[in-house]
């Protein structure tokens, strides 16, 4: 069990050099150029020289990586729009004012939790039951935060501001990337995109639509979310530990759906990580996978 998962961040040397991005910038700033020029770039292993040698390759990669992330984010942002309309319409039906509906989408910003709270309020539920149900659905943000924390670098107020964008979609796009700076980029692009679209469509739904639920099912748009999550998962499935984790996590969630409150199955799926350990002691060598492919990009 020494390091069967190391490949995740090191399958490709061009990506690996990006991991040293920040350190490289620091080195550049502190005037280590002479030293780099003196040492032969092929034999040295310092991140500084590696970065310099791979830089042209990296720039091409950067543009392609950005486009891939934009495509992923665009699809997932578009898939959110109909649900924003439905939320706005549901909030209006439940008796919320436009300001209150917008307040939920701007400040709570968590699709399923907003739906739950508004539905309970509309059914005449108590303040406590609406708030607790809503908050339970957002407990998974705690786990999202642990996953995304290393990527969301910045001052404390920048990290706080980025945290507000922490939802399924932004975490999914962010966590699907292999390198911290792209995780941050994917998280921010998807998060900001969903934030803008979610709020505009909430307003639209509250003002204009009442029965948009039919529109979603007629166009099959309720399958767009599941398809997007599967597409983001796909490249990971070529690695045995990741595949075992995904299968275990999916099964845990499936089994819990009928019994646990909404939101809990997704949270509990994290226990599926334990499945990656199964057999990894005995198959340590064969476990080391081929470099992963990027089917989703």
């Amino acid at each position, binding site marked *: 069990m020494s390091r069967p998962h190391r490949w995740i961040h090191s399958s490709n040397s061009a990506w690996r050099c990006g991991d040293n991005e920040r350190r490289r910038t620091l080195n550049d700033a502190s005037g280590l150029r002479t030293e780099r020029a003196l040492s032969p770039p092929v034999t040295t292993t310092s991140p500084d020289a590696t970065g310099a040698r791979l830089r042209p390759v990296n720039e091409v990669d950067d543009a392609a990586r950005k486009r891939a992330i934009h495509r992923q984010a665009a699809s997932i942002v578009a898939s959110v729009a109909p649900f924003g309309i439905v939320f706005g319409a549901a909030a209006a039906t439940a008796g919320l004012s436009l300001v209150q509906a917008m307040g939920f989408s701007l400040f709570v910003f968590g699709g399923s939790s907003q739906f739950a709270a508004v539905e309970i309020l509309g059914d005449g539920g108590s303040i406590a039951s609406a708030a607790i149900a809503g908050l339970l659905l957002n407990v998974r943000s705690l786990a999202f935060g*642990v996953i995304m924390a290393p990527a969301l670098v910045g001052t404390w107020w920048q990290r706080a501001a980025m945290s507000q964008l922490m939802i399924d979609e932004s975490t999914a796009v962010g966590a699907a990337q292999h390198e911290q700076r792209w995780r941050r980029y994917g998280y921010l692009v998807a998060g900001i995109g969903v934030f803008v679209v979610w709020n505009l469509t909430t307003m639209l739904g509250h003002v204009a639509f009442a029965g948009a639920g039919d529109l979603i099912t007629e166009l099959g748009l309720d*399958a767009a979310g*599941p398809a997007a999550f599967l597409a983001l998962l796909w490249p990971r499935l070529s690695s045995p530990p990741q595949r075992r984790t995904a299968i275990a996590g999916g099964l845990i969630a499936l089994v819990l759906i009928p019994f646990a409150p909404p939101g809990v199955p997704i949270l509990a799926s994290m226990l599926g990580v334990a499945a990656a350990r199964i057999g990894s002691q005995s198959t340590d060598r064969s476990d080391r996978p081929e470099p992963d492919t990027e089917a989703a990009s």
Partner: protein
Amino acid sequence: MSDATVVLIVMTVGTFALKSAGPLVLGDRALPVRVQQVVDLLPAALLAALAIVSTVGDGRGIVIDARLVGLVAAGIALWRRLPFVVVIIVASAATALTRLIS
């Protein structure tokens, strides 16, 4: 203050605390290797769960409907290495068609 406004305020504060706990407490501090290995695996479990729950969940129980056809179609599209956007369109179209003919 109406009920909805109280719920809004409570949920805003509570949700922000849940969202920001990781980034504010952990920051970009490097995690121990063991923990990092677990964190590297978490997205796989999470994405699988999100896909499953959004396909067969309806908030109360398991519901098998046209969304499952969409997910299978998405799987086939991914296996054929089609681009991300196409995968989404294929899934939506398969689901809409299934509803149309059933």
